[in-house]
């Protein structure tokens, strides 16, 4: 097991290095990192200083080497907009986004497994058909549209309907005003963003879980368990669900990138100051150091998540040898 993890980590390193090189290259090809200095009063001198600080006159490999050397020490430079250290901006944003991702995965996993198992055990029932229809609709909606409609219906219209002064579900940020912490208000602010973030994922995963559960429940070992006298409910959970979870883990790992993409959309809709907002702002303003750091941190997160999923897969399925 330890060898396996080590090997996977070692394989991940070149992936990260190559990916980050390509990302850095494309970011610097897209934007003039010193554009903002050209328009300001400082003139040529400041532009030169900026170019020097990013080694822009060197080859792209040398630039990358420099950047990487600083990056591994946690130094991603300073934002060209705010002059704040990029690392602290990322840390702050990442913490916020991590909350969204945590709740997103939790809600998606629990709901998809429940819906998928229900649909599989009651195949062709009214419930199964309903969830199938909902999944098709969920997959056919642009997620941001779902989020906007959710605000309209569940925040605005519901508020008018109930005649309350504040909407039941908040749709700006994750807290009211400057509050912090795990409060009821926090949960009320989470509902709509998490719904928006997860609607497509739940649609996909629950379909997947349904078919994997159907496969498993028709397996011979399920019949064996019944023949041993194990009650139905226990068969479903201990033998059925346990086996049907294995393929879902792979799908979850592959979708983490999509989830991060969903965060970009969700944070824009709900004005949540996380990674998504950070990315969009940096992209619109051409804030090169922030973009570079953002892309690489995201890449590392996704690779790490895939690694965890791989290990989990091995733990769940003893047939996979983790050596």
């Amino acid at each position, binding site marked *: 097991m330890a060898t396996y993890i080590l090997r996977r980590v070692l394989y991940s390193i070149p992936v990260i290095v190559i990916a980050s090189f390509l990302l850095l290259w494309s970011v610097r090809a897209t934007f003039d990192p010193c554009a903002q200095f050209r328009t300001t009063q400082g003139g040529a001198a400041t532009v030169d200083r900026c170019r020097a600080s990013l080694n822009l006159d060197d080859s792209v490999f040398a630039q990358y080497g420099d950047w990487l050397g600083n990056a591994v020490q946690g130094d991603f430079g300073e934002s060209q907009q705010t002059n704040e250290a990029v690392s602290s901006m990322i840390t702050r944003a990442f913490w916020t986004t991590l909350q969204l991702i945590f709740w997103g995965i939790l809600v998606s996993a629990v709901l998809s497994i429940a819906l998928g198992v229900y649909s599989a055990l009651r195949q062709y029932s009214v419930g199964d058909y309903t969830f199938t229809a909902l999944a098709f*609709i969920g997959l*056919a*909606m642009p997620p941001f549209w779902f989020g*906007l409609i959710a605000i309209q219906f569940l925040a605005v219209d519901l508020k008018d309907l109930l005649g309350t002064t504040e909407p039941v579900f908040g749709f700006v940020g994750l807290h009211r005003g400057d509050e912090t912490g795990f409060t009821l208000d926090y949960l009320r602010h989470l509902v709509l963003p998490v719904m928006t973030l997860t609607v497509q994922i739940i649609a996909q995963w629950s379909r997947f879980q349904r078919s994997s559960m159907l496969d498993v429940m028709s397996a011979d070992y399920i019949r064996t368990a019944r023949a041993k006298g194990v009650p139905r409910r226990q068969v479903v959970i201990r033998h059925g669900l346990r086996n049907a979870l294995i393929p879902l883990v792979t799908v979850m790992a592959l979708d983490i990138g999509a989830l991060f993409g969903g965060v970009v*959309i969700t944070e824009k809709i709900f004005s949540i100051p996380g990674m998504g907002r950070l*990315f969009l702002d940096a992209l619109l303003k051409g804030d090169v150091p922030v973009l570079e750091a953002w*892309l690489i941190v995201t890449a590392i997160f996704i*690779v790490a998540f895939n690694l965890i999923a791989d290990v989990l897969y091995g733990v769940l399925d003893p047939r996979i040898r983790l050596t």
Partner: protein
Amino acid sequence: MTFSSAEMAPTPGPPAPLRSEPIARSQWQLFWRRFRRHKVAIASVVVLLALVVVCFGASFFAPFPNNQQDILLGPVSPNATHWLGTDELGRDQVTRLLYAGQISLKIGFAVALISTFVGTVIGALAGYFGRVTDQFLMRTTDLFLVVPAIALLALVLELFGHTSTVIILVLAALFWMGVARVVRGQVLSLREKEFVEAARASGASPLRIIVRHILPNIIGPILLNVTLGVAAAIITESTLSFLGFGVQPPQTSWGNMLADAGGYVGTSQSYLLYAPGLMILLTVLAVNFIGDGLSDAFDPQSEHH
């Protein structure tokens, strides 16, 4: 017994009755017969065709000229003249919807066709010739999985501009990899089949083997990918529009209209929010149902609906 039929499938069931098909019946006729049975898919084909006709015949169907503004009129809620109301600039929403549909549908189909074509060619080559191509393909796609697609697209569109042609090319450049992986897998398994061996033994060139013997056998997954591509492209384009990286005015897509309408959530103009979204929903639903019908028709094993 509390087990329902589905849960206890491993019943040594009766042997399937031998159906004697007339030998003359071609694969396509068989396929068409099975596809016809999927009623929702047939209805979806009709819906999709209707959408295409109405949108591309917009100059004929639309109640008002494209982009006609009426600033004095301003935004009005849906009424008898303007069925879906007008926007801030007094533009009729039905008219806009049809013209925007041209762009959205064009992007959807163009991306799907280009990415499927490129993906099929590369996937087939990688699967058939293996080794270097194969490794390159797999490692490249590994690299792309590392970054959220939306972020990558936004970055690249920022670089190349936001016209619909650029969007089509950029989306296709991202989507072909999925197709290539699927085709590669299929070709890999077909390559070892007897009929391919036979063709190879009789001196057929690799190109001929791929085109004449292998591709016809994987037309199902390929077509399915076209439908998936259309759906994904339309939704992705709308999302990019919302983030500010989609087609720019005066070009309009459904996603673009939705993105504009996003600013009116919770206001008296929230009616602008529904129609473009419903058009996307309808199109993508239709395309996905067609895909469902296709995969059922090409894979008889899955036709127990």
